[in-house]
């Protein structure tokens, strides 16, 4: 009877336990990881391509080169570099790269936040506690048979009750923390989600700009009537295939909407905030929003920086 009474608040609180959001917060966290990977990978790709384009430009123009002072300073530890001595040399780092490096704290902050959300809703403790409570109740129940006394069942019920109440207490503390935090940060997540979307769009734009330089070079012999006349069928085929590969890459990068991904990031968090505000437990809206964000983040990652990076072609 005592146990049954204790289970009433437990049953009530279970509906709004933080653990019911474990899966959704896991998806939110995985989505944040994907957009962060897209950001980091995209910035790396831009840097790598810029360096390859610069080398290609130096080779084509036979640029006059030199070495930095640091190469000769034996005791110094500054990086030794090849210098482009032309007055009209391309910039070492353009505005986009500079801006993209500055935005890193936004992605780091979101990443840490998503990890912390996952930690507060981690179901492992709950499962372990439930198991420990059950084992304790079983052990104490076993005393009844051994002692053949009337007190053991009461002790067993008391032990089970203690375990149940502990779970309820931890659940309620976790939920209170989750609720307070998610409601307080919801607007901030909306703000930072905009930065995420705009940053990823800037990466997308810059990658497309870089690819257009390569694409222009690739299509040039196929567009120019004089050059066409001198192309052998094999050369023509090779140029066509190289151009097609670049076109495919352009289309892959274009096939994502970073701004929409940023918006669904915010929507996913907002759905969670609304669910904990209303204390209605796991709702379809939270599940759908988290799933939608994970999918959108996956598309952006696949477009901007796929795992099997075929985006690193030699610009020459």
């Amino acid at each position, binding site marked *: 009877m005592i146990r049954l009474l204790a289970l009433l608040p437990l049953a009530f609180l279970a509906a709004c336990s933080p653990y019911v959001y474990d899966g959704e917060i896991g998806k939110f966290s995985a989505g944040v990881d994907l957009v962060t990977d897209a950001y980091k990978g995209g910035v790396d790709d831009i840097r790598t391509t810029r360096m390859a384009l610069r080398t290609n430009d130096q080779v084509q123009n036979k640029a006059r080169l030199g070495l930095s002072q640091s190469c000769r300073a034996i005791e110094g530890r500054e990086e030794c570099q090849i210098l482009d001595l032309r007055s009209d040399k391309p910039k070492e780092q353009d505005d986009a790269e500079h801006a993209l490096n*500055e935005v890193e704290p936004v992605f780091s902050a979101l990443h840490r936040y998503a990890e912390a959300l996952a930690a507060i809703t981690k179901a492992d403790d709950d499962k372990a506690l439930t198991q420990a409570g059950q084992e304790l109740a079983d052990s104490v129940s076993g005393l009844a048979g051994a002692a053949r006394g009337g007190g053991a069942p009461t002790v067993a019920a008391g032990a089970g009750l203690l375990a149940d109440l502990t779970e309820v207490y931890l659940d309620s503390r976790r939920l209170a923390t989750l609720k307070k935090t998610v409601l307080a940060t919801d607007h901030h997540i909306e703000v930072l989600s905009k930065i995420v979307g705009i940053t990823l769009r800037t990466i997308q*734009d810059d990658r497309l700009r870089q690819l257009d330089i390569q694409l222009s070079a690739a299509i040039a012999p196929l567009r120019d009537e004089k050059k066409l006349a001198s192309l052998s069928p094999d050369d023509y085929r090779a140029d066509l295939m190289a151009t097609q590969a670049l076109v495919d890459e352009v289309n892959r990068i274009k096939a994502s909407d970073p701004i929409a991904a940023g918006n669904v990031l915010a929507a996913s968090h907002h759905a969670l905030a609304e669910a904990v505000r209303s204390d209605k437990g796991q709702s379809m809206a939270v599940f759908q929003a988290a799933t939608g964000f994970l999918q959108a983040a996956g598309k952006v990652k696949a477009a901007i920086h796929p795992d099997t990076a075929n985006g690193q072609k030699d610009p020459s």
Partner: protein
Amino acid sequence: MTLDDIDKAATQAVQDLKSAIDKLSDLENQPGADGAAIDARIAQLQQAQVTIRAKEVTTLLDTPEVKTALQDLATASAGLTAEAANLTSIANAIQTADKVIAQAADFTKALAVLV
């Protein structure tokens, strides 16, 4: 200016450049067009587009709204992590206590058989 206002202004400027690029692209496919010169002009306009986007990002990062968001989110993350660690400690302590009680119960049960 709100974040959306900044984005709208940047997007409008980028769109204006896009219109110019579209016109040049049409010209480029015409017979006798100077492809190299048009390519160079398009590259300049594309660079201008990306520069506008880059300026947009840095402008947004400098807004008080974004700075506050970053600061508050860091505080919230630290609070969540600390509370998660506290609760895990409590859960671990209770599990340990449970094991001790269970062992005591088993020991008592074993003794009861002997009595």
